[in-house]
């Protein structure tokens, strides 16, 4: 089983040199800490910044410089600032190469639900619907099952949808999975100590297992 840090580390290995990346709130934000140093990538913050840096030192904190999670941040060299319409022009126009975000459910055809639970206070979708409708390359970070033990990798999403046919890969505490273009969760890697059978039993949607499934190494 992977902890949150390991999920972030495994996702970080999917990053390629030269990518512009948008990281969602939660585990995705942690990914920034594990991007291999030899890669040149740029993080986009949808509230208007390209070139997100680490959290600032106490004396560098600037109320006018926050990320989309409203945390104070710093900028790396070569950053650019812009307004919200320009920010989503980048996202909608397909200029952001990789989007990493959390989810409540993913369906076997790549639909994602991550913004609304009926009966609970709805806070809003923020930029998630724009991101999932536009990105060519979406990786989801989430737990394989809910706290109640219900699979979150489903045949069809039960919660209100955020976007359709958009998720490319999923990293959970149990596995690395890719969503096939024709549908279906194809198992690529197992978390250390997790068996294929366990993943099979905890995946409600169609799981595709071909050949030997390697175990992740950290």
């Amino acid at each position: 089983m992977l902890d949150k840090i390991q999920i972030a580390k495994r996702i970080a290995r999917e990053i390629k040199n030269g990518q512009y990346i948008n990281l969602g709130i939660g585990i995705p934000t942690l990914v920034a800490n594990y991007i291999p140093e030899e890669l040149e990538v740029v993080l986009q913050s949808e509230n208007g910044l390209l070139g997100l840096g680490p959290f600032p030192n106490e004396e560098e904190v600037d109320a006018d410089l926050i990320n989309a999670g409203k945390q104070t941040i710093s900028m790396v060299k070569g950053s650019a600032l812009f307004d919200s319409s320009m920010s989503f022009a980048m996202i909608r126009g397909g200029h952001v190469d990789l989007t990493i975000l959390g989810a409540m459910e993913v369906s076997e055809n790549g639909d994602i639900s991550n913004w609304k639970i009926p009966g609970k206070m709805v806070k809003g979708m923020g930029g998630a619907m724009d991101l999932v409708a536009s990105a060519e390359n979406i990786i989801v970070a989430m737990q394989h099952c809910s706290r109640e033990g219900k699979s979150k990798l489903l045949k069809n999403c039960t919660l209100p949808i955020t976007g359709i046919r958009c998720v490319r890969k999923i990293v959970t505490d149990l596995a690395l999975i890719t969503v096939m273009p024709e549908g279906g969760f194809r198992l690529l890697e197992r978390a250390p100590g997790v068996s294929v059978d366990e993943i099979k039993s905890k995946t409600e949607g169609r799981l595709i297992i071909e050949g030997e499934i390697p175990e992740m190494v950290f």
Partner: protein
Amino acid sequence: MINKTVPNAESATKDIGSNSVLMLGGFGLCGIPENCISALLTRDLHDLTCISNNAGVDDFGIGQMLQRRMVRKMISSYVGENAEFERQLLSGELKVELIPQGTLAERIRAGGAGIPGFFTPAGVGTEVADGKEQREFDGKLYILERGLIADFALVKAWKGDTAGNLIFKGTARNFNPLMAMAGRITIAEVEELVPAGELDPNHIHTPGIFVQRIFEGKNYEKRIEKRTVTP
């Protein structure tokens, strides 16, 4: 050069009446028009519609307008971090229209730019698409979204000049330049107001044509919602 200067927030906002549609700049508490909001809080206003990406926190920003029951409807992309908001919403006192953030930004820009409608992929296949025209372009589905304008747009900039030209700082820019375009009356408050001619014309983010009133604000608190530092 046309002079847009007014003395202060009170005079700038004095003709904002109940039932008005307002746009308020800012993302979270970053780049919000603090002085204009403070001026509105002294007035007996009700049934405002507020278009703003977020709704402030309980005791700051639009949250204070909610505390005083001034707002009938919020049009936002994300409205967390606000207990009073939740209470009013559940009790039915407050209506909320949630819009994907990029669609909200583009609708405001479109309204200001005289574009009554545009197609976007955001929300296809979701409840956001309900009741909206859907159309395929080049094999991909899109929905038709409408331009948005407001009676008053309240924006906050870093520097401004008497001609209404604005320059923003950092991520405090966010929705402010878009809303400046989309207000029938746009009121800009700035941290530093300079005479026309002192700002480099190449650096201006919002040209003065979009701004009807400008004043130098005071006592900016610039509250930080989530102070996060590297130890």
